[in-house]
């Protein structure tokens, strides 16, 4: 199975969910996260969530999931785009336990709230801190270099 076939299968199984294939990954709607990931885990035997991170696209935040199927030897990259003023997305901790710490890290560094997460605390930065350092608007105390033109 390759990624295009997977997307077709997904669209067949869940026609309501907006599953869309882009060159850099499969984009899904935020509200379909439990449905699509449930299908991936249950129907398509994606056994393992290898990586979960986010990218600040200035105005929106993309949450990026790398799920891997050892059965199909296939890495699926899924993306959920969140608006800056509503950073909530359903947690996938119930499907893959590895999501627990990955989601905590994304919460810590980007401020994305994973609803349904059992223990959403900061993980790398001190508790009680209010900022989210991997956002592009974060003004740290350090020296910020300018890109070479």
């Amino acid at each position, binding site marked *: 199975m390759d990624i295009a076939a997977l997307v077709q299968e997904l669209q067949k199984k869940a026609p309501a969910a907006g599953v869309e294939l882009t*060159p*850099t*990954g499969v984009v899904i709607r935020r509200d379909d996260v439990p449905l699509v990931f449930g299908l991936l885990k249950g129907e398509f035997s994606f*056994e*393992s*969530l*290898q*990586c979960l*991170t986010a*990218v*600040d696209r200035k105005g929106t935040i993309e949450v*990026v999931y*790398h799920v891997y199927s*050892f059965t199909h*030897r296939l*890495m699926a*990259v899924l993306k959920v785009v969140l608006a800056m003023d509503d950073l909530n997305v359903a947690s996938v901790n119930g499907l*893959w*336990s*590895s999501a*627990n*710490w990955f989601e905590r890290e994304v919460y810590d*560094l980007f401020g994305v709230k994973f609803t349904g997460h059992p223990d959403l605390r*900061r*993980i*790398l*930065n*001190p508790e009680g801190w209010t900022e989210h*350092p*991997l956002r592009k608007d*974060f003004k*740290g105390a350090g020296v*910020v*270099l300018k*890109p*070479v033109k």
Partner: protein
Amino acid sequence: MVTEELIVNMGPQHPSTHGVLYLELKLDGEIIVECRPNIGYLHRSIEKIAENRTLVQFVPFTDRLDYLASMNDNLGFCLAAEKLLQIEAPARAQYLRVIVAELNRIASHLLAISTFAQDLGAYATPLFFAMRDRQKVVQIFDELCGQRLTYNYIRIGGVAGDMTPEIARMIGEFVLYFRKMVNDYDELLTHNIIFKVRSKGIGIISKEFALDYAVTGPSLRASGFKWDVRKDEPYLVYDKFDFDVPVGANGDAWDRYYVRIQEMRESLRIIEQAMGAIPEGDPVAKVNKVFRPSGEVYMRTESPRGDLGFYIVGTGETFPYRLKIRAPSFSNIAALAPLIKGLNVSDAVCALGSLDIVMGEIDR
């Protein structure tokens, strides 16, 4: 009689937390009722730094991730960057990369098994044996790139320096020497009765548990699941070599230890084959001075601790837009809390030691 649960703060400064890991343990007598691992004491915001450096400038930072296997981190990052920039390293560089990565794997596994033995109370002796053998690897790296720990040797498009005949002789000697020395560890630890009763059946990671928690590397293979990126998604020239992927049977601490011992033997085989087949040529490709990465890439390699992934997002600037390091130790340590629940403190130390974590990579 009134009994109370005892809360013990294990770490951040503790002899067997392998760095600055902090475990909040709730104990009933000596049985762990609850464990809350806290990390972040070594957080140096390397991912944020990456957004303010060019890809070439970032290579030395990867040395500081997994400081016991810097070559593998260099390699993981450079392969990801090369995949993004569509650069291919020359054949000689590919072989050199394999050789240094496998040498570094041996050095890293040596430390892993000896600190594990130290956690089980074998005072310092296995550690000194391992340090003696690791020193030989480190000396080879010192000759090769002038550094003992933070190499910055593997660069985008190749490697920093070519192998001289002197270094080739040193590597050849090391392979012959270490092939005999691995047996010493078998004698000292593997079949020692106390070592066995302490580590057999402790901290069992089943196949399902490992996949659920995305545990990778020797800890995954110890559960009997045959998965090695070098074999299953070959990068560099690994597909040209003949080597086995050792697996364990029960997934307990002893299996994790023994998988590492066997992996060192396999690494020796790879090094020997690579030394025999290394082609002549330039060790570095002719590449641009300035890179403007665009697009996305996720590349994973097999570091001594598991699947090391680099996720790079570029937008055409000289700086990468976002760089995420998927560190194997991070996922492995996340599995610690359910793993040691219900064990006593001695066994928890054993389970933690057998996971082989490096805090520099977890906290980034």
